């Protein structure tokens, strides 16, 4: 159980982030729902969490903006007094073939998906070092391990997140801060709804468990990594992909 713990979920207003926020709340954590733009959807998540009997607030912040991220951390500390769990989930896609990918498309994805994790991790570490405890869980992607045509920017960012996870885990282990990543495969969300039926059926053939994942499949692993049960696991990347990449 995570009773009394405080969790921040970046990009927590929809998709996998929303499922993570709700799963942590179901296990007793108070949750800060960070969002970039969609205040109404963030508010819906906050209300759903409050309905579960724990506390929640929403905080707008661009994870790639250091000043805004510092505000996010300060607001969390002012409201709940600690930050026990940070889930770096916020992410975007700007898919294109490498030969057609614009530099801006590359930069945008690297900024949010990789640099954003760096900025949020750096900002939360100050508090977690003082506490002498903390959990950081990064949402990478299975394509960061396997590669994926049309996603050079996204894959580069997610592979970067996996490396960042390992280094952060090594640097902060002596302060009892545990850092892990999850690498979801094909999970049904708004992001993957954009794929064509042909792309979807092609992917299904690659999944030994022969079904797509649900956001809850990812959320439950993150809940485990955030719990005391996972206290001897750090620097790892857990694949949640139905066996697609082994």
């Amino acid at each position, binding site marked *: 159980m995570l009773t009394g713990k405080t969790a921040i979920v970046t990009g927590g207003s929809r998709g996998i982030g929303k499922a993570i926020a709700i799963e942590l709340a179901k296990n007793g954590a108070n949750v800060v729902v960070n969002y970039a733009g969609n205040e109404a959807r963030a508010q819906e998540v906050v209300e759903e969490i409050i309905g579960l009997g724990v506390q929640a607030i929403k905080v707008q912040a661009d994870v790639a903006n250091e000043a805004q991220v510092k505000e996010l951390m300060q607001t969390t500390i002012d409201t709940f007094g600690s930050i026990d769990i940070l889930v770096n989930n916020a992410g975007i896609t700007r898919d294109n073939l490498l030969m057609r990918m614009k530099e801006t498309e590359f930069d945008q994805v690297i900024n949010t998906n990789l640099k954003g994790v760096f900025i949020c991790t750096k900002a939360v570490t100050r508090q977690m*070092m*003082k506490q002498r405890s903390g959990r950081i869980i990064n949402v990478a992607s299975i394509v960061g391990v396997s590669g994926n045509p049309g996603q050079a920017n996204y894959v580069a960012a997610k592979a970067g997140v996996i490396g960042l996870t390992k280094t952060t885990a090594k640097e902060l282990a002596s302060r009892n801060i545990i850092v892990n990543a999850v690498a979801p495969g094909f999970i049904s969300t708004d992001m993957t709804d954009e794929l064509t039926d042909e792309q979807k059926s092609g992917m299904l053939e690659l999944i030994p468990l022969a079904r797509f994942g649900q956001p809850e499949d990812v959320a439950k692993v993150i809940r485990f990594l955030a719990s005391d049960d996972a206290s001897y696991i750090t620097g790892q990347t857990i694949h949640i992909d139905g066996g697609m990449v082994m």
Partner: protein
Amino acid sequence: MADVFDRVKEIIVDKLDVEESKVTMEASFKDDLEADSLDVVELVMELEDEFDMEIADEEAEKINTVGDAVNYIKNLQG
């Protein structure tokens, strides 16, 4: 209010778990007080809180001895 050196010393003794007598103005954090680089980062954080100031990363990197820290804080306090 206690002298800057005494306040800095108290934090160092507490954080690095070293004997008071070892904390002199000349003592190097890494060589004499057995602090690793993360310890120094943490000390700087504590000093920022104690003296209610922000020490920029590029300035923090120049703090090698107890005296560096004390003098930096004194200079900022004017």
